[in-house]
């Protein structure tokens, strides 16, 4: 914990179980072919925790006999709401993240589900995007809706991460539409990004 940061409180067990159930429901809400893709790339395991993700990831890496994170790497990952750890084939979601505290029940659910959808798509993007897709990240980001572009840029991602973040954010938005009964290409989404998400995530709705 950095100096000056408030001490982080654990979630009560009922709230954590509730968060775990929400993510389970988000998984069941995925189109069946998306779940199959995730199973095929072994990205169908996740853990919903109320602990900082750098700390939790470091514990899992140590248990698996893998190289642990440095202190600065751990601190950086502690800021994340979710993460796909490729070497462990697991998604971690921080249900007690500071960003989620203070949200009402409805907004909390929407945010937590969004993190899960984002991470599943991120895992598919890592596994299935081509090197050309990754190289095109900065150009593709220019084609994204302004709010999505601002969010990715302001978070400080490297250029070679843009494509994965764009796929993940776009997928989460498409799932948000689907949850509300809307499918197909939305007018606000550039055709090239839509085609990319269809290819990488198997989006066929």
């Amino acid at each position, binding site marked *: 914990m950095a100096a000056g940061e408030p001490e982080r409180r654990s979630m009560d067990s*009922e709230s954590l179980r*509730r968060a775990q*159930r929400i993510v389970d*429901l*988000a998984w*069941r*809400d995925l189109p069946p072919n998306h779940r199959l893709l995730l199973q095929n790339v072994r990205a169908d395991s996740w853990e919903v925790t109320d602990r900082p*993700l750098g700390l939790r*990831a470091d514990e899992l890496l140590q248990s698996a006999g893998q*190289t*642990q*994170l*440095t202190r600065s*790497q751990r601190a*950086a*990952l502690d*800021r*994340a*709401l*979710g*993460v*796909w*750890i*490729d*070497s462990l084939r697991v998604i971690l979601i921080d249900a007690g993240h500071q*960003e*989620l505290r203070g*949200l009402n*029940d*409805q*907004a909390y*659910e*929407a*945010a937590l589900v*969004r*993190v899960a959808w*984002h*991470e599943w798509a*991120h895992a598919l993007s890592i596994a299935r995007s081509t090197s050309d897709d990754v190289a095109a990240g900065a150009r593709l980001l220019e084609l994204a*809706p302004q*709010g999505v572009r*601002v*969010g990715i840029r*302001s*978070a*400080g*991602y*490297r250029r070679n*991460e843009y494509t994965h973040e764009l796929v*993940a954010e776009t997928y*989460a*938005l498409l799932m*948000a*539409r689907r*949850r*509300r009964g*809307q499918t197909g290409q*939305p*007018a*606000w989404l550039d055709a090239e990004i839509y085609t990319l998400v269809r290819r990488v995530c198997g989006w066929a709705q």
Partner: protein
Amino acid sequence: MGAVKPPTPPKGYVLSEQHGIKEVLEVEAELLRSEGIDPQWPGFPEDEAGRPPRT
């Protein structure tokens, strides 16, 4: 022999101070509204039993 540098870990899903989760949800809501879709979170139909009573 020098220490082996750990591989670069994933950055994870991070948000900036200027563009936090409330802004992310607001961007989503604006895009949905632009299509005439009610942005209110509909929940999951099978979740009624698991939903805690609202206070």
